[in-house]
């Protein structure tokens, strides 16, 4: 038997209803899929952004806040660590590399982050896409998405709570808090990292200190007559002109300014845990960003579970209403199917026509839902990327596919309800029905 001529005729009578059914099912499926795929993309994207942040040391406070500030560059006021830790780390056997992170300044809405050239190059993992890393105070290397150009001059402003302007745009607030006379020159641009650091302006930590009148943390601190302007207002120490340009560790000054966070790249796993234990006492805290992320993901997962349950309930409701609609439609077609029976169609033919019709609509909805879900996930990822700089690469995984397949299966089973009611309908009353 070949139910398809009849099936197509049936679908043709539902010229508007059939697409509506497909769309309803598609939306139901898409919402579930988008939630799952988006959550996973967010998790992967945020974990990738934390890749180079092995161990963070900060002043006691909220670990989450420190991760948000250090890894995701969310502006916040952080307590400072004693700068002497930088000296201790320089001599520590267990440390492969370390970098202070200094936040607080902005330019055109981009955070200006003071650090070392080594960390700007992610401990040698990346090389600038254009130009070079900063090699002296007053130089800056910019993230891939920062809209300055090589050779541009950047005038940093002091970040304030109200100063959360849009990236790439100068705001009134920024203008009012400009650090007059402390400019940076762009010497390089980093490749795309897919993290908020793509929107950061990286400068030597020494420059950040000096802009704020804290000296440069080096024993060779100088105030030579040809010293650059950014040292103009700083504390004077023993002159040593030949070392004026030296930046980066060791920070061997008598008085090393404080920093909000220090990143440590440990030599070994054992060393990492020992360092973490050591800096958990004595006025500092140390932790692996992964620890914080795991608990964040836990919360994210709980939210996802709630949303998934809600969207599953949503989907079941939509499937049920579609099935009810199909039962009603089949009720209107009683006479048509009764005619087929009178013409010699077996009951199984009517069953097949009605079941296939319903199942095909639901299956089409599931497939369309997958596509729609993927589209929605990409759209949301685009929004997330625009807001946070976190680049997400959402994909439909086996989980989403099996979710759609399961709903398709449930839908097909439910589709049997209208079919069975048509199957059981007596021919005679169908022929008499109007």
């Amino acid at each position, binding site marked *: *038997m070949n139910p398809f001529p009849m099936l197509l005729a049936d679908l043709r009578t539902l010229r508007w209803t059939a697409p509506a059914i497909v769309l309803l099912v598609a939306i139901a499926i898409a919402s579930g899929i988008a939630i799952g795929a988006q959550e996973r993309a967010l998790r992967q994207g945020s974990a990738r952004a934390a890749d180079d942040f092995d161990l963070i040391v900060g002043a006691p406070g909220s670990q989450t806040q420190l991760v948000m500030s250090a890894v995701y560059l969310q502006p916040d006021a952080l307590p400072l660590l004693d700068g002497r830790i930088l000296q201790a780390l320089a001599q520590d056997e267990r440390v492969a590399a370390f970098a202070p992170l200094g936040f607080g300044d902005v330019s055109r809405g981009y955070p200006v982050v003071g650090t070392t050239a080594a960390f700007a190059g992610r401990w040698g993992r990346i090389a600038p896409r254009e130009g070079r890393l900063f090699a002296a105070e007053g130089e800056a290397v910019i993230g891939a998405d920062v809209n300055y150009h090589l050779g541009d001059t950047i005038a940093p402003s002091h970040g304030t709570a109200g100063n959360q302007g849009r990236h790439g745009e100068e705001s009134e607030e920024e203008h009012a808090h400009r650090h007059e006379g402390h400019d940076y020159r762009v010497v390089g641009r980093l490749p795309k990292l897919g993290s908020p650091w793509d929107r950061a302006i990286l400068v030597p930590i020494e420059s950040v200190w000096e802009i704020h009148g804290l000296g440069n943390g080096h024993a060779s601190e100088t105030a030579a007559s040809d010293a650059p302007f950014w040292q103009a207002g700083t504390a004077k120490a023993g002159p040593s002109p030949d070392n004026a340009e030296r930046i980066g560790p060791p920070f061997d000054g008598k008085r090393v300014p404080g920093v909000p966070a220090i990143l440590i790249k440990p030599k070994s796993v054992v060393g990492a845990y020992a360092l973490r234990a050591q800096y958990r006492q004595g006025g500092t805290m140390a932790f692996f960003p992964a620890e914080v992320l795991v608990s964040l993901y836990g919360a994210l997962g709980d939210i996802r579970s709630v949303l998934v349950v809600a969207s599953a309930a949503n989907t079941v409701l939509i499937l049920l209403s579609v099935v009810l609609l199909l039962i009603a439609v089949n009720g209107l077609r009683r006479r048509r199917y009764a005619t087929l029976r009178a*013409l010699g169609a077996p009951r199984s033919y009517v069953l097949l026509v009605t079941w296939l019709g319903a199942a095909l609509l639901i299956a089409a909805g599931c497939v369309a839902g997958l596509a729609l879900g993927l589209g929605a996930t990409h759209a949301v990822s685009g929004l997330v990327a625009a807001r946070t700089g976190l680049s997400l690469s959402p994909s439909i995984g086996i989980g989403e596919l099996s979710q759609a397949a399961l709903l398709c299966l449930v839908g097909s089973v439910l589709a049997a309800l209208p079919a069975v009611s048509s199957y059981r309908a007596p021919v005679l009353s169908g022929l008499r029905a109007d």
Partner: protein
Amino acid sequence: MPPSPLPEGRAETLVLDRLALDRRDGDGRSFSILALPALTLEPGTSLGVSGPSGSGKSSFLHLVAGLITPSAGRVSWGNRVISALGESERDRWRRGTIGFVFQDFHLIPELDVAANIALPASFSSWRLDAAGRRRALDLAEQMGLADPRRRAALLSRGEQQRVAIARALFGKPALLLADEPTASLDAARGEAIGSLLVEAAARCGASLICASHDASLLARMDGRLDLTPASAKLAS
């Protein structure tokens, strides 16, 4: 499965043996819809069934077609007792034996003329073979349908009934049943449709039963059965 393996002109003797059909009304009381004397229809002959509305003409055709089973008595076709078969057996017998023409045609409006005619083939086989397609086109031509690609919804009532007759003939039936085939047509069209039916039945050697009010159609039939509203029904 081929659409219809049986040859044409295989009509057999239809015997209705003291048929009765009862129904229960809302109060659970039983009343009679049909009570027939013994009736025999020889192969290839025709029977006109008349009677006022509600006298059970349609029920009579449904009984013969095996769409319902009688409360008493039996329907046999040759040496098969149709009324004793199970539902799927009756479906199969009906598919191989009967062509049905309805008062309101019951075409599938979304399908074209040829597809409507060949629709019964889809009940039993996956695809319509070349012979089946040719047969559908031949039948359309015989019935005077100029354009077999035209959608059924666009046809006039007379044309729709021609398609319905062609569809009934598609499976080479041995027994043609027609329920008021001319009732929804004007006199001239009704006349033409009546002629087509009788000729078609004669051409394939099929027996023909027409339930009708139409005197001119009934006059063409070999035999005549007048149904009167059953007395039991009147009593209830």
